[in-house]
């Protein structure tokens, strides 16, 4: 049997040793074998491709920077604007009186002020007392406080809904794909039925029914968005599992005697779940938007809770004088818009990497 070497120059007898050496080095470059970098080997080829796609697109870099800023705000919320301290719920926006007239920007903060004045505030505004940086809503809720602490609400509600919908979708979709036949048929018809109601309207109803039963909080909206939000993932994972099931390497695994559960968890699911995972994580932005919309319509977070959509909903009562009270819409609206934009910019780049139809278009 032939000796195996890195190259085939062993069979080239007419070459001088010097040339053989040169060939060895050249061959490493010329040969079709593609070498993977350390990072790629560590995180896996597909994930690497996604990451590389993210850093290759200027738009997604902007998105990542934006998102990073939001993470900073969420993490450091107590240092940006402290709560009122004590045992009081920090997510309850402090209200400066009960006047129905919104207070303008930079007006004095009289009641329920934050417990301390952080250093950055003194440096930027040269003041030792809090003012309403972005004004208040009707009812005296401080908009700046609501936006900063609302960042946490956005991340947590988005993450919770994605995790819930993804789990349901993956389980239901996998069952449909794995068992096939009538099980698949029944499950997919149920998916169809859930999809015949418009997403937002359906969520609106469910939240409205749930509120009298379990009280007004974030929970009814989260449940409602979950119940009507899992179908997309179920369809996606089902399609991918069905495709992977037919691949030759699954047949090959059967041939070498791998047991069925191992085939499912080692060969099928890891190769099928990746697009679903990535798409789902990119959906956080859109879900935060839907959650905010429910809050805006009045079936989301309770009044006074630090949530962007809830703050904007105050503006509904001031339609004809919005030009005067613009800060009630513009600041929380921009926070929401930039948050969703960040996710969408990243999501767009990721979809380009994942979309097999666009793959190869260089």
């Amino acid at each position, binding site marked *: 049997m032939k000796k195996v070497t890195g190259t085939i120059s062993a069979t080239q007898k007419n070459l001088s040793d010097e040339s053989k050496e040169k060939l060895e080095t050249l061959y490493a470059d010329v040969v079709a074998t593609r070498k993977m970098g350390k990072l790629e080997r560590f995180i896996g080829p597909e994930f690497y491709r996604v990451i590389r796609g993210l850093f290759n697109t200027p738009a997604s870099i902007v998105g990542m920077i934006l998102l990073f800023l939001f993470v900073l705000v969420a993490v450091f919320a107590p240092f940006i604007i402290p709560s009122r301290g004590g045992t009081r719920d920090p997510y309850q926006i402090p209200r400066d009186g009960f006047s129905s007239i919104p207070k303008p920007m930079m007006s004095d903060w009289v009641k329920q002020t934050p417990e301390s004045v952080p250093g950055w505030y003194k440096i930027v505004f040269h003041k030792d007392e809090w003012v309403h940086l972005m004004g208040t809503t009707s009812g005296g809720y401080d908009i700046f406080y609501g936006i900063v602490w609302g960042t946490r609400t956005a991340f947590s509600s988005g993450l919770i809904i994605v995790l819930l919908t993804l789990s349901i979708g993956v389980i239901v979709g996998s069952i449909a794909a794995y068992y096939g036949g009538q099980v698949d048929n029944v499950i997919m018809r149920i998916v169809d039925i859930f999809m015949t109601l418009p997403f937002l309207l359906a969520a609106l109803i469910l939240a409205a029914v749930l509120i009298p039963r379990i009280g007004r909080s974030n929970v009814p909206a989260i449940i409602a968005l979950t119940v009507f939000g899992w179908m997309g993932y179920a369809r996606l994972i089902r399609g991918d599992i069905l495709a992977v099931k037919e691949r030759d390497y699954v*047949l090959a695994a059967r041939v070498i005697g791998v047991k069925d559960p191992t085939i499912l968890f080692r060969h099928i699911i890891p190769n099928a779940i990746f697009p679903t995972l990535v798409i789902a994580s990119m959906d956080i932005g859109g879900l935060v938007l839907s959650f905010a919309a429910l809050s805006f319509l009045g079936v989301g977070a309770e009044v006074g809770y630090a949530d962007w959509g809830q703050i904007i909903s105050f503006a509904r009562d001031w339609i004809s004088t919005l030009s005067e009270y613009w800060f009630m819409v513009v600041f929380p609206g921009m926070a929401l818009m930039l948050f969703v934009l960040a996710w969408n910019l990243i999501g767009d780049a990721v979809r380009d990497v994942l979309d097999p139809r666009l793959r190869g278009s260089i």
Partner: protein
Amino acid sequence: MNKKNTSDICLRVEDLVMHFPIKRGVFQKTVGHVRAVDGVSFDVYYGETLGLVGESGCGKTTTGRSILQLYEPTAGHVYFEGNDLTTMKKEDLRLARKDIQMIFQDPYASLNPRMTIAQIVGEPLKVFSIVKPEEIREKVKDLLQLVLLNPAFIDRYPHEFSGGQRQRIGVARALALEPKLIICDEPISALDVSVQAQVINLLEELQSKFNLTYLFIAHDLSMVKHISDRVAVMYLGVIVELAINKDLFAYPLHPYTQALISAVPIPDPVVEEKRRRIILEGDVPSPADPPSGCRFRTRCSIAQDICAKVQPKWREVKSGHFVACHFAK
């Protein structure tokens, strides 16, 4: 080749039938069947290479997969070393597959892209606990050496390799369980011309080294002629002719075999100039609705009334030369 005893038979396929239902209409009722394999019988002897050749859609790949019970055959039996695979329980079958392995056509699709070479080639060793877990890596390196791959590549992923190299990895995986029979399902048709010979030579070397038995499925007649001891020709779900290599190519008896052989171009203009081609009319009929009687009669130049009525018998015309044609002598 002399007459063989039954003890020499490694694999016996008896009247293997594989029909796939066609579902149509409002209620997805089964309206017919694709008769991919429609009554195929042959033996494979220890140590030989049986070539199974035919055009696309003739059922050769389905035959290979039904032998391994990757599809559940509609009817018929597959005996491996005397044991009927079609009636085996799932777990017994899994254990029996240890001795029958397969090499797949598409080296890009048959390797799990998320596993390294060590994992891919090591998996069968792990499943059957052939060697101790800590020795798997060493064994994988030996296997790579065996298929002429650099053992240093052991931690690489499949997409870091070219088609020919991937096919070697597939061969190494098949060899890991030290099987007796390997079903090679078009192992070279996806490879570049200059790489095909490398894989063929490797398969031949391994055969002589480990006394392997091959069922070599291919559409490339020249390659089948090169590697096989005996050749079976399939057309539309049935075997029309089976003979030892020399006989089949020198004295083909079935009109289809004759046409097939004449259609293969030979890389020599001098020879080509003198050759007379048999050009078959039309296309292969649909396996969902095969012609009555002899399957080939619609394209056959010597077909007569009897061919439409009576399915030709599978008979041994000369010693070891089987054919299914009314007029073969």
